[in-house]
């Protein structure tokens, strides 16, 4: 038999014992109450006493009558006899009324009393006459009374015997009821013993279960306390059922450590809609939640929260909330992120540096290529002139006329002058780039400076025309006249080189609030669109400049000088062809400002 079935059987037997006890008790009580009611009734004894009294008074009356007949018949005697007569009658009266009367009729002894009463009333008439006349009472009238005395005695005897039988029967009944009650009591005692034994067994079982429960609770408390996490468990009402000290240290409750058994929202005084309450609600709805690391409001700690519903079978009976202090891990991670960011920044910087270096390197290589190309082109022509003149002079020897020698020497000198200029302009540019040129601005007449530059250019190229328009120029301009002269000369020589006669070179000055613009325009080859940007680089020669003498340094130097003045040189390609270069320098007042 399985343990559950056994338990059911034992429970059934116990219930049966309880019901049987109740039934037996009811039965026994019912029998006892019945007997008690029977005890209360029964007037046999009283009837016997009353009959005895009636018999006694009647006998006394008879005796008193004898006394009267044989005595002096005084008034007191008459009174005594009258009283005795009254007493005898009253005794018959008592026995024939009320409960005694009913008992008498039950005992079927009414006839005796009735006849005794009739005799007594008949005797009363004779007695009253005798008492009045103080005469003797006739013997004959006494006979009835004497018979009645015997009859009353016999009736009393019968009542006595009947009562004895009655009492005997009653005793038998009581005895049987008593035995029934005793048996019932024994049975009740048996059932009671069984119930008591069951009670003791269940108490022992309950104590064992409680012990086991306590052990379980102690063990789970040990587990809770040994956990490094804060743990709080709650039932479906949100009432705390478990709680560990780590939780107390992490989140001290306003009510101290007395949290278990209280509503969590009361114990921690959480306002409605608090994140913990929402988590508890969702957990009781069956969700397992995880809240990633976040700072707690009261300090510099970081925690993670986990919740899990607690189930008993299919139903959710509560939930458990873990709070884990992840400050160290979190800070370590944060530090790691910071390091990574720093590293990325450093890598970016390094990459930029590298890129810059690479660019610089590329530029240098370009520069070098430009220089080499410039040198190969620009130095080759004068050198070949020098070489061919020298070869001719060697071949001709003494045949060469003085004029021819002079002409050849003149060509050689021109070539050397050209080379010298190339070298000096290259050096100038290097000096400029190295910052070794002195910048000494002073007040000077820019218009005059431009005119002189044009004149110098006319000496070299007398066939070119210059149209000069400088009306707007102020009288004095603050600049370094030597350097600005170099810029103007550069721009003029460029205009001459890249255009041809009879197109004029136009020079114009425009002035606005801050700037002085000097425009030098020609109607020559112009600048290819895609080479605008490179125009001002060192050693750059536009592709349509092949065959024209130049180092590619002039514009670079011009821009550098303009920039030293706080201005710039820019190039335009006007619609009608040719090119326009604009020197822009600040006005004196603007410079002063």
């Amino acid at each position, binding site marked *: 038999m399985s343990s559950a079935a056994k338990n059911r059987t034992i429970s059934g037997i116990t219930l049966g014992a309880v019901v049987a006890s109740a039934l037996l008790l009811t039965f026994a009580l019912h029998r006892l109450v019945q007997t008690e009611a029977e005890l209360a009734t029964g007037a046999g004894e009283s009837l016997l006493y009353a009959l005895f009294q009636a018999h006694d008074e009647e006998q006394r009356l008879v005796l008193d009558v004898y006394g009267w007949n044989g005595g002096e018949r005084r008034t007191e005697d008459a009174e005594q006899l009258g009283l005795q007569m009254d007493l005898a009658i009253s005794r018959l009266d008592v026995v024939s009324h*009320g409960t005694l009367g009913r008992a008498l009729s039950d005992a079927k002894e009414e006839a005796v009393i009735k006849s005794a009463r009739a005799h007594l009333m008949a005797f009363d008439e004779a007695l009253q006459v005798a008492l009045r006349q103080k005469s003797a009472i006739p013997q004959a009238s006494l006979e009835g009374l004497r018979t009645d005395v015997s009859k009353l005695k016999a009736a009393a005897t019968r009542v006595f015997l009947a009562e004895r039988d009655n009492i005997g029967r009653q005793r038998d009944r009581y005895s049987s009821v008593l035995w029934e009650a005793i048996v019932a009591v024994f049975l009740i005692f048996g059932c009671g013993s069984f119930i008591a034994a069951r009670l003791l067994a269940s108490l022992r079982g309950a104590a064992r279960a409680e012990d086991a429960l306590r052990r379980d609770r102690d063990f789970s408390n040990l587990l809770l306390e040994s956990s490094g996490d804060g743990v709080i468990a709650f039932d479906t009402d949100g009432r705390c059922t478990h709680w560990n000290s780590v939780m107390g240290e992490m989140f001290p409750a306003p009510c101290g450590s007395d949290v278990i058994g209280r509503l969590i929202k009361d114990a921690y005084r959480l306002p409605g809609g608090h994140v913990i309450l929402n988590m508890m609600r969702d957990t009781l709805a069956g969700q397992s939640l995880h809240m990633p690391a976040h700072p707690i409001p009261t300090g510099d700690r970081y925690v993670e929260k986990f919740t899990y519903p607690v189930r008993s079978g299919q139903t959710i009976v509560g939930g458990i909330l873990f709070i884990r202090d992840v400050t160290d891990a979190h800070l370590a991670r944060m530090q790691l992120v910071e390091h990574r960011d720093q590293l990325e920044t450093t890598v970016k910087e390094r990459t930029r540096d590298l890129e810059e270096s690479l660019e610089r390197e590329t530029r240098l290589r370009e520069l070098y290529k430009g220089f080499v190309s410039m040198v190969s082109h620009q130095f080759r022509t004068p050198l070949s002139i020098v070489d061919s003149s020298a070869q001719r002079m060697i071949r001709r020897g003494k045949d060469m006329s003085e004029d021819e020698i002079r002409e050849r020497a003149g060509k050689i000198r021109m070539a050397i002058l050209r080379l010298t200029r190339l070298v000096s302009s290259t050096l100038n540019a290097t000096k400029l780039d190295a910052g070794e040129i002195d910048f000494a601005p002073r007040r000077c007449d820019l218009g005059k400076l431009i005119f002189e530059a044009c004149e110098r250019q006319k000496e070299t190229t007398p066939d070119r025309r210059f149209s000069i328009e400088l009306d707007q120029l102020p009288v004095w301009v603050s600049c370094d006249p030597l350097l600005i002269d170099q810029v103007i000369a550069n721009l003029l020589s460029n205009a001459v080189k890249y255009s041809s006669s009879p197109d004029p070179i136009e020079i114009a000055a425009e002035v606005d609030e801050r700037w002085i613009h000097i425009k030098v325009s020609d109607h020559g080859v112009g600048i290819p669109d895609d080479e605008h940007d490179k125009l001002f680089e060192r050693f750059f020669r536009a592709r349509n400049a092949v065959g024209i003498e130049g180092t590619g340094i002039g514009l670079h130097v011009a821009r550098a000088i303009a920039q030293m003045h706080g201005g710039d040189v820019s190039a335009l390609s006007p619609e009608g062809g040719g090119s326009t270069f604009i020197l822009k320098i600040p006005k004196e007042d603007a410079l002063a400002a």
Partner: protein
Amino acid sequence: MKQSRHLRLRENLGRMLRRLVIMLPMLLAAGAVDATDLSTPTGPVLLTITGKLGRTNHENEAIFDEAMLAALPQRRIETSTPWTDGKKLFEGVLLADLLDLVGVGDAQTFRAIALNEYEIVTPISEAIEHGALLAMRMDGKPLTRRDKGPIWIVYPRDSNSSIQDERHDARWAWQLLRIEVR
């Protein structure tokens, strides 16, 4: 009381005048002072009270005739009894009133003795508490010696279940002759 007196007058018209003459000073005396002695009975003595009494009228006893008892406040009890059939109306003097009249002091019990030598002892306090009445009339008729008279100690048995008991019923002494207080 008025009714009982009226009945009595109607019953015995011949003695009416003499009764009035006797009653007049008695009524006056009853309304007067406690210190005065009890009046002396003129008719046959119905009841004798003995014991340590405050007031007496015959050799340390208080004796009462019918008129003296009739002069005391009359009370009624309607009850059934184990010795009669159906409900009966009893009229008479409260035992409490009578004992007050004679002054029983600190006596605890009284012994009731009947014409047929029946004796029963009753605690005075219980008898007074239960409203013992010295009944002299039943259903308007005077009790005679032939039917438990002339005096029958009765109790309001129907209205008090605690006295509906055979042992208490023994205190219903009829044909009362003497009361001994002690």
